[in-house]
């Protein structure tokens, strides 16, 4: 079988590809990876998101960051736009997400010991889900939270999102 080369999606990057292609993001901790896929055109996109949202005040004033792909709200809007430009239908797009771990559990104490601030991983996951909802993209699968890093691989031939961890575990959404 021919090996499909993987396209690397780095931190705060967003890339799209048409089947057959693999989009791959390595070593996500608190970051969240979002895969959007259109099963009919078999075009997919992967975003490697660092932060929940760009400042609302600045957004209203039309002041945009140098790299919008860092932020869940802006990155998902742009990823959706690019996929539609490439020929995907808005109503066919579906999402799978993974990441949002808490790598240093000692920085965020156990919730059973009283109320604690949500971890940055939790905040990223929540922001991603809220924005998917806002953009009308259904969430088809998720593997989020925990205390382990993840490597993600979106197969644009099938829409499968494969997740591997440093302990060698592998699961497919």
């Amino acid at each position: 079988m021919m090996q499909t080369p993987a396209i690397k999606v780095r931190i705060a990057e967003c890339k799209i590809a048409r089947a057959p292609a693999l989009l791959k993001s390595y070593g996500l901790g608190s970051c969240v990876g979002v895969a959007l896929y259109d099963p009919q055109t078999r075009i997919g996109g992967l975003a490697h998101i660092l932060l929940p949202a760009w400042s609302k005040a600045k957004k209203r004033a039309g002041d945009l960051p140098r790299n919008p792909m860092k932020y869940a709200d802006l990155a998902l809007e742009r990823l959706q736009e690019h996929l539609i430009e490439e020929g995907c239908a808005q109503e066919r797009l579906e999402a799978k997400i993974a990441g949002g771990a808490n790598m240093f559990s000692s920085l965020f104490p156990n919730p059973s010991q009283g109320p604690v601030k949500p971890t940055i991983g939790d905040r990223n996951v929540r922001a991603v889900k809220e924005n998917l909802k806002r953009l009308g993209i259904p969430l088809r699968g998720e593997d989020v939270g925990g205390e382990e890093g993840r490597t993600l691989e979106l197969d644009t031939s099938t829409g499968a999102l494969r997740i591997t961890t440093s302990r060698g575990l592998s699961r497919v959404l």
Partner: protein
Amino acid sequence: MAKPKLSIMDQLRDVHLDALQEICNIGMGHAATALSQMIGKTVNLNVPKVTLAGLDQVPDIIGGAEQVVVGIYLQVWGDFRGNLLLIFPRDSAQNLNALLTGQPATSELILSEIHASALKEVANILAGAYLGAMGNLLGLSLLPSVPSLAFDMAGAIVDYILIELGQESDLTLVVETQFFGMGSTIRGHFFLLPDPNSLKLILEASRVEPLIRSGRD
């Protein structure tokens, strides 16, 4: 049209990077001496490497996003804010642990409580000596936080720090010092990633050319 705002990262020049390198070199010298006393072996150092990098380049600088390493993270508190990260390749962490605790590693993929605690202690000693020496030199009070440890992919370990830094900037300064002992069976990388807002303070305290006052990124 509004003038584009200059962030501190846009204004950094070689003279600033050189000053930072020298300060960190002195700090790391003290840290290596402290580690050497702790393990009873000679510890050698490389000259610190100062890199101004995009956030997305940092996982490669610390050894590759998917490389499984032991990472110990400390925040810098006091007059100056920043992040310290001590990275050991898996085999070096095991060799260092065998030396410190006399107990061989039980598994390739899990660190026992005693091993994790010994490595955090190493980070404490390195960070205390490093920040103490830098603080003395600059007349600033610099304190390390309690260390946190993760045994995982380097990218996953460092992205917490990148998220903190990413709120202010798309770029970061990375000061890397490599140290090694017992031939090269123990190798470690010590990283300082200063908070962009604190960078000005550290450079002013080192009395190199002043930076222009400007808006934040």
